[in-house]
């Protein structure tokens, strides 16, 4: 199954081919157009061993291109009962099924539709895939009039269509910003994926990390000693750059703060530089914090599986905070992790009455907006430090970078963190240029690889979905010479690297705290000549002359 195919490779796709998007709908009506599993546009299914480990239904070998998906015999009953149960549980689902008037305000807001032209990637039609079944079996008009009332019978091809299109939605919620009713397609996709999971239909790029996360505490399956080694390597690099050896507190009881970050920061560049940034910042301000090997990932691919799975993976955060006896929790730069922490954690696994309202030990600021969850975002923490003048920063150390900022879907749209990152960025670099107004803040475009879709076998959809964002990056690249895209999300840092290399070559991706750390003037540091990427921080002259500019 694994192994390189040509459609896994970026080079297989020619930009001129992807740019000629055909927006004409197919000849046949949408209900009569069967789904086409074209390589490069769908994800490999979950391997049975992971489903078994997690106790999920119907583990088996199968492929979406198979005629027979080996569904359980009573699959139809399972789905209909599943829909009924969720209609009772989720007001959002019930209302979103009922109120859509199909006005089409959302239609051209989806990055997959913009870059792909498939009408079923219009959020309205994506929801309609499920809504048509709802009408047929759960509304009076649909029961009597059937297709005339927009209903259709639940059949195996419908399930196949769900699988294809609910795993072509990144749950970014851009469409919901434009919907006059506030219909949130992400919620519909989430329910759709929950229903598919009842039949054992899920994708390996989600379910393998979920299984890892359940066992080792993080999606990458890093075991405790491995995490320690990783952070030690980072400390080595930091020492090389700054001459300072930072301490790495692990599973320390009695620390003030538990720090939780997405595990993507441990594994792959450029996230690793951001992780080094956290470590340098905490060292410099003398924060009494701890990492945890058990709560070693704030990210939660359970969100892309089911509400139940999200709760199962999230439980470790409060449990570990309680065990270690910390006062409050701080979270790193991650996207969907913050959707879970902000929107669900307190409700699912709270109340966190054993913690205190987060208060910065450096500035004394009480973070009242997190008084129930007891967890704040590191960008909020850093912005507060800068505001109170507690950090010595030299933005000129980032002078080679011309920076733009990509609002990650979840922090921007789910949490509303829009100003803090910009405040921090303006204080740590001298060249900051915004992308066009309709592509940032709450209208930000998705990276094209969120919600568990950022894998290589899905490359065509990732490149297509990344087109709107890539296009905006290219715009500021041409206009202002931007060469660095900042994002506070681990998935962004991974997938936007591909997107930028393809649509705006020359622009590299970085986290905010990488730049913070580069600009941070640390006590007792040696003269900084290289940044965390081991690149020179000033222009290298052809003939090196000792010429120091103030």
């Amino acid at each position, binding site marked *: 199954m694994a192994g390189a195919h040509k459609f896994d490779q970026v080079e297989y796709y020619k930009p001129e081919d992807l740019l000629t998007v055909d927006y004409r709908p197919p000849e046949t009506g949408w209900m009569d157009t069967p789904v086409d599993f074209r390589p490069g546009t769908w994800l490999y299914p979950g391997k049975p061993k992971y489903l078994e480990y997690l106790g999920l239904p119907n583990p088996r070998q199968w492929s979406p291109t198979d005629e027979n998906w080996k569904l359980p015999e009573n699959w139809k009953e399972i789905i209909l009962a599943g829909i009924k149960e969720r209609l009772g549980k989720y007001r959002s689902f019930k209302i979103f099924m009922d109120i859509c008037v199909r006005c089409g305000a959302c239609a051209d807001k989806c990055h997959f539709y913009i870059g792909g032209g498939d009408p079923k990637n219009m959020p309205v039609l994506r929801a309609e895939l499920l809504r048509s079944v709802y009408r047929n079996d759960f509304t009076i008009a649909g029961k009597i009039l059937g297709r005339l009332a927009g209903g259709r019978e639940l059949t195996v091809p419908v399930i196949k269509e769900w699988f294809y299109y609910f795993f072509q939605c990144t749950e970014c919620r851009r469409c*919901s910003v434009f919907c006059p009713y506030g219909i949130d397609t992400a919620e519909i996709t989430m329910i759709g994926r929950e229903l598919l999971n009842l039949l054992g239909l899920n994708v390996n790029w989600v379910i393998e990390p979920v299984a890892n996360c359940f066992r080792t505490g993080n999606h990458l399956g890093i075991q405790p*000693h491995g995490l320690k080694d990783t952070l030690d390597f980072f400390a080595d690099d930091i020492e090389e750059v700054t001459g300072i050896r930072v301490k790495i507190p*692990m599973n320390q009881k009695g620390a003030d703060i538990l720090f939780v970050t997405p595990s993507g920061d441990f594994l792959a560049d450029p996230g690793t530089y951001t992780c080094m940034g956290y470590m340098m910042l905490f060292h410099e301000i003398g924060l009494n914090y701890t990492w945890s090997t058990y709560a070693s990932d704030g990210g939660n691919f359970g969100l892309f599986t089911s509400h139940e799975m999200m709760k199962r993976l999230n*439980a470790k955060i409060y449990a570990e905070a309680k065990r270690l006896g910390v006062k409050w929790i701080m979270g790193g730069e991650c996207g969907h992790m913050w959707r879970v922490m902000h929107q669900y954690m307190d409700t699912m696994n709270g109340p966190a009455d054993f913690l205190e309202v987060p208060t910065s030990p450096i500035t004394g600021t009480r973070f009242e907006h997190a008084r129930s969850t007891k967890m704040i975002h590191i960008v909020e923490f850093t912005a507060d430090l800068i505001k109170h003048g507690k950090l010595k920063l030299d933005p000129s150390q980032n002078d080679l970078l011309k920076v733009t900022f990509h609002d990650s879907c979840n922090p921007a749209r789910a949490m509303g963190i829009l100003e803090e990152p910009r405040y921090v960025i303006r204080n740590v670099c001298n060249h900051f240029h915004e992308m066009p107004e309709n592509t940032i803040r709450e209208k930000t475009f998705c990276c094209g690889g969120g919600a568990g879709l950022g894998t290589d076998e899905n490359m065509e959809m990732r490149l297509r979905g990344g087109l709107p964002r890539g296009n905006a990056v290219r715009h500021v690249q041409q206009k202002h010479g931007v060469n660095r895209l900042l994002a506070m999300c681990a998935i962004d840092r991974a997938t936007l690297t591909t997107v930028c290399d393809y649509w705006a070559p020359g622009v590299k991706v970085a986290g905010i705290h990488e730049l913070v750390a580069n600009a941070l003037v640390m006590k007792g540091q040696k003269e900084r000549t290289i940044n965390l990427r081991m690149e020179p921080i000033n222009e290298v002259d052809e003939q090196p002359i000792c010429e120091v500019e103030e």
Partner: protein
Amino acid sequence: MGLVSFKPAIPKGLHWFFFLHLTLVATLLAYFPFSKLMHMGGVFLSPTRNLANNNRMVRHVNPWNAPVKVHTYEEYEDDFRDKMKAAGIPVEKE
């Protein structure tokens, strides 16, 4: 008003066009309850519209918050105790 109370009184000397117009108005009135415009009420019901985004400030209680199977710290430590000790990471049970 006669129309609404189902006792229409027809004045004399009206143009035929008025009757056509009246029929269409009455049809629209009769159709309105089944039309998409009735979905307008949904604006006030939509949770993304009528709930404040204050989840970290205030605890929202879920009445059916069902218990789930989790991997506890004790189980985790049982899985990795030797490796944790070898790496110098503190453990609960020696």
